[in-house]
């Protein structure tokens, strides 16, 4: 059904890589052009499909990193023994083509209603949160708690430094190693860390948490223990198949 756009159907679109940015040693952002792409909402993802010469196909989901209305970008972490991510991160270049479909998701989506927004990302879980940061108008308070293993693993490092204090506050925790003079947090997210970083539940923030399932559970359980209503917490877990 490729190429036949049917209303209400999710159709595979031909996509072309038109640029890339190496974010870390294992993470790369791809700028994409896709004929028929109709835009997205902050937090949504898309599916990528690669087809081998022998017809074998592999599909994976990737969060959209760009703000709605900007050049479409995804950010991909290379996973060991992956079928799709090693090609996207190490091999693919400008002009290479593959198929994608989307946008997908109606739950892990931020609509600015003026309420504060607490974003909690672990590793490449920051990607859909970055789409929200990039689309913020400044009318809502926004705070990002970003957990990485080391400073070199921080995705969007320069952009986040520039944006910190301009519409978003960024709080880092580096769980594995910290550079000399590090003033951020240095441990996995726990309830004491959340108590210091999160606004009181009475501020009624929207919460978006994205990361591994263990990371998401730790952050969400901690916030619930601090009095956040479970329904105010939206979560997305990514897997170890890439």
């Amino acid at each position, binding site marked *: 059904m490729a190429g036949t756009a049917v209303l209400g159907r*999710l159709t595979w679109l031909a996509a072309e890589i038109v640029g890339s940015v190496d974010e870390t040693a294992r993470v790369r952002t791809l700028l994409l052009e896709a004929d028929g792409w109709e835009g997205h909402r902050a937090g949504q993802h898309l599916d990528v499909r690669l087809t081998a010469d022998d017809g074998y196909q592999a599909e994976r989901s990737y969060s959209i990193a760009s703000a709605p209305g900007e050049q479409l970008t995804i950010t991909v972490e290379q996973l060991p023994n992956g079928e799709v991510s090693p090609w996207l991160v190490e091999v693919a270049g400008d002009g290479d083509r593959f198929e994608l479909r989307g946008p997908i*998701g*109606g*739950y892990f989506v931020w609509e600015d209603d003026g309420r504060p927004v607490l974003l909690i990302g672990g590793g490449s879980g920051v990607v859909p949160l970055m789409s929200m940061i990039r689309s913020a108008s400044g009318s809502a308070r926004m705070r990002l708690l970003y957990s990485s293993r080391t400073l070199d693993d921080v995705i969007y490092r320069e952009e986040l430094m520039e944006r910190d204090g301009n519409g978003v506050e960024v709080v880092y925790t580096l769980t594995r190693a910290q550079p000399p003079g590090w003033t951020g947090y240095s441990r996995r997210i726990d309830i004491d860390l959340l108590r210091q970083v999160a606004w009181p539940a009475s501020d009624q923030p929207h919460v978006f948490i994205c990361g591994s399932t263990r990371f998401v559970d730790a952050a969400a359980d901690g916030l619930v223990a601090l009095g956040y209503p479970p329904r105010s917490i939206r979560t997305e877990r990514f*897997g170890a198949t890439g």
Partner: protein
Amino acid sequence: MTDSGRTYEMRLDGNALGGMLFELFGLELTAATEVCGTCGAADLVARLEVYAHAPGMVGRCPHCHAVMLRIVRGPDRTWLDMSGVASIELPATL
């Protein structure tokens, strides 16, 4: 809950079913509400516990962990078992 170790690490959530459900039903379903046929809990499709590392995808109730749906795709067909779902409620905007 006995879910631990590698199986726990591999667990996803209903967001990961979004593309496949859209493909099958022509609707964005992750924000729809499902009622578990086993325990009766109502929750969003996005909050299902999803295991996608087997040949098929399995969605379990986030409250009682019963299997709610299973999806297996072959080269020329898709097999969908929703016997663990009592009902699905869609927002009017869909």
